[in-house]
């Protein structure tokens, strides 16, 4: 802008004469007035422009000549114009005015924002004027507004951003939490999986290019006996008994893995210590397209399982053997049909061929169709009730024959009879006869006991009688000896001796029979004079028994020497003759004949006594046996038993003929030389 001309000092003086300024200062003021970028105007008390500076004119876009002398209202804001008088009054009040913002009107009607400040001054002559300064704050206002807008905008943006960020942070926090939680879950899952893998009873391995990437402890430590983890990175060849085995498995397995299939086999593997064991191995590729890149293998030690399998097979075959070798029929029946039968039942008991019963109805095994129909409901009721059914009934064989059996059934589950029933069948016909045998054996034993107790009481009786004789004889001699005649005493003494002899003989008989039954009797043949021995024996008997019968003895073909056991002969002949004496009346006769012919000695002893009842004859030679007709006659029942034993020892035989109340005849035949044997 062109510099305004130098203001007139006088005009300036006319305005500002309050202060008497120096000329330099006046010029300075003038310059400032003209050049300042502040609009300055002076208004008189009527509100007319008195002075205006160039900038003010620039601001309001008026020429100075358009302003001077005109009323301020052309530029003032409308509301100030409205309160004209009040404004002027206020304007010229002495109090300083605070700068205010006004919208000033330009010449073209547009408004600009201005900071207006007022200062009333008083001229020397008393006239008051107001100095009004204007600064266009439009721009600064705009700028301010802009700044404010920008501020607001910025704040908004900040708020938005903050909002965004808060949300974002919240999201991130949430995401972080979620991440942490899922990491925890992952850790847990990982720990679980690791635990599973490590505690697995099977060995698990991850291979890459047939090298061990990872395996669980079960595999390296337990199965193979290596220190845990020591084989990582090694080729799996170490597990195989030989390189050939390693390569063979590779050749078999990997093509299958490449097809996406599982490879399984049972193979022998080698432990760390070199021992071999059977192993079940199963492998699969992680990616079938590239099995070498990764494959998972499972290994199980089946050594014990194989052992178990073997044991199971053994047990099963044992069981089978037991079932099949049973001595009773066993059948599994379902819905009244044979499902399984053991061999004994099918073939032995019922006479079918192998496989002839399975699948058939059990009807054909019943004794009758009526029985089949009748028993059915009863069996089912009982089985459902107790689970058990038993009956004796007729069973039919294939050929139609029937026989009595004990049939027992046990339901597999009594709550569900359709599962079937196990039947056992026992042939009663055999058992019945076994029972009969048992009854017989018991009866025999009872009889034996009776015989023995009879023997005991009889023996007791047999000893008491001679003892009574001895005692009474001695007492007579001792207490009444002085009153007895001599011959009486002699007789008494003889009686004592006889009694003693009788008891002694009995003891010997008992001991003899005991020895012979214990197998300790011996056969000792010597050359003997048969005739004199027999005569001696007969004499002894006559003496011992005080026999009153006439005993006649005859010989035929007897030589001086025969090979015989004299003691056994004494037992035989002595007992037979003694019996003849005991069991025949005193007035009868007893005949003894001794014959020898064709290497055999034949002894016959015949009496005419009470005879032997027919019923007793079969058991005549049994120990302790006594005929029913001799209970009054002293005897132990041992005599004939001894005779028979002695005859047997001599290799001979004995026969008897007897008619009750008429007489008895015994015939003994013994071979002469050799013959006999040790008892």
């Amino acid at each position, binding site marked *: 802008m062109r510099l305004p001309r130098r203001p007139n000092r006088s005009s300036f003086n006319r305005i500002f004469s309050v202060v008497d300024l120096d000329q330099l200062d006046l010029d300075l003021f003038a310059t400032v007035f003209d050049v300042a970028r502040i609009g300055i105007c002076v208004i008189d008390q009527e509100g007319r422009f008195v002075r205006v500076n160039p900038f003010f004119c620039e601001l309001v876009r008026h020429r100075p000549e358009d302003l001077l002398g005109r009323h301020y209202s052309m530029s003032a804001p409308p509301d100030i114009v409205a309160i004209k008088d009040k404004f002027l009054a206020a304007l010229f009040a002495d109090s300083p005015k605070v700068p205010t913002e006004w919208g000033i009107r330009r010449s073209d009607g547009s408004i600009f924002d201005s900071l207006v400040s007022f200062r009333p001054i008083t001229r020397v002559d008393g006239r008051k004027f107001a100095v009004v300064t204007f600064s266009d704050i439009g721009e600064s206002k705009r700028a301010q507004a802009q700044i404010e807008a920008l501020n607001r905008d910025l704040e908004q943006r900040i708020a938005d951003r903050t909002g965004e960020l808060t949300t974002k942070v919240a999201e991130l926090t949430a995401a972080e939490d979620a991440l942490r939680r899922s990491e925890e879950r992952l850790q847990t899952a990982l720990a679980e999986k690791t635990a599973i893998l490590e505690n697995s009873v099977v060995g698990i391995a991850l291979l890459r290019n047939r090298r061990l990437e990872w395996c669980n402890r079960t595999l390296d430590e337990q199965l193979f006996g290596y220190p845990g983890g020591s084989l990582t990175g090694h080729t799996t060849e170490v597990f195989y008994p030989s390189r050939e085995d390693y390569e063979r498995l590779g050749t078999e397995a990997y093509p299958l893995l490449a097809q996406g299939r599982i490879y399984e086999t049972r193979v022998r593997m080698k432990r760390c210590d070199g021992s071999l064991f059977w192993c079940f191995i199963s492998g699969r590729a992680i990616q079938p397209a590239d099995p070498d890149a990764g494959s998972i293998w499972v290994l199980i030690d089946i050594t014990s399982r194989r052992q178990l399998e073997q044991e199971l097979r053994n047990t099963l075959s044992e069981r089978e053997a037991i079932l099949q070798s049973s001595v009773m029929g066993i059948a599994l029946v379902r819905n009244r049909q044979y499902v399984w039968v053991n061999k004994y039942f099918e073939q032995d008991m019922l006479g079918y061929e192998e496989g002839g019963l399975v699948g058939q109805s059990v009807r054909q095994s019943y004794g009758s169709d009526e029985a089949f129909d009748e028993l059915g409901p009863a069996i089912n009721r009982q089985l459902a009730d107790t689970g058990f059914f038993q009956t004796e009934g007729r069973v039919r064989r294939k050929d139609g024959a029937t026989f009595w059996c004990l049939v027992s059934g046990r339901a597999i589950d009594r709550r569900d009879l359709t599962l079937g029933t196990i039947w056992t069948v026992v042939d009663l016909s055999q058992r019945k006869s076994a029972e009969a045998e048992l009854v017989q054996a018991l009866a025999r034993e009872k009889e034996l006991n009776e015989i023995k107790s009879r023997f005991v009481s009889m023996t007791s009786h047999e000893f008491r009688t001679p003892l009574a004789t001895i005692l009474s004889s001695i007492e007579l001699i001792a*207490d009444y000896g002085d009153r007895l005649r001599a011959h009486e005493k002699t007789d008494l003494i003889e009686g004592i001796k006889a*009694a003693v002899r009788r008891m002694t003989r009995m003891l010997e008989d008992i001991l003899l029979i005991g020895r012979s039954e214990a197998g300790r009797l011996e056969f000792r043949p010597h050359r003997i004079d048969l005739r004199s021995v027999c005569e001696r024996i007969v004499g002894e008997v006559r003496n011992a028994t005080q026999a009153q019968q006439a005993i006649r003895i005859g010989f035929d073909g007897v030589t001086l020497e025969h090979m015989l056991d004299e003691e056994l002969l004494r037992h035989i002949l002595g007992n037979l003759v003694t019996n003849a004496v005991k069991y025949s009346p005193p007035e009868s006769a007893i005949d003894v004949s001794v014959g020898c012919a064709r290497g055999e000695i034949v002894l016959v002893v015949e009496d005419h006594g009470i005879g032997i009842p027919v019923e007793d004859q079969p058991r005549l030679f049994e120990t302790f046996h006594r005929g029913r007709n001799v209970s009054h006659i002293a005897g132990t029942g041992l005599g004939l038993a001894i005779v028979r034993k002695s005859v047997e020892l001599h290799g001979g035989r004995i026969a008897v003929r007897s008619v009750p109340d008429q007489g008895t005849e015994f015939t003994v035949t013994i071979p002469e030389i050799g013959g006999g044997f040790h008892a």
Partner: protein
Amino acid sequence: MRRILLIENDTAILANFARLLALEGYEVLTASNGVDGLALARSRTPDLILCDLRMPGMDGDAVLAALRADYTATALPFIFMTASADHSERAARLAQGANDYLVKPIEFRLLLQAIDRQLGAGGTHR
């Protein structure tokens, strides 16, 4: 003098006890079997009977039963003297009406005591 009937199957025992009783002052009747003994008991009415148990034909039990049909135990004392050693039979025999039951071998003094118990020491009872 008191009369004793002795029924005994064994000859030696019969002889010895008959001798003893005679030496002790009793009148002795003897029989070697039950039938003879019973007949003697009925015909000669002894004061006491000593009887064996096991005898052929009629045994001691039968003799007792027959006598007890006619004579009470007080009227005719009856003592068994047997080699059957079954002491448990004693009670049964007593229940049947026997006055006593002795088991052989028996010492004389015991026998005499048994007789005295039935007849009273000395004197007749009838």
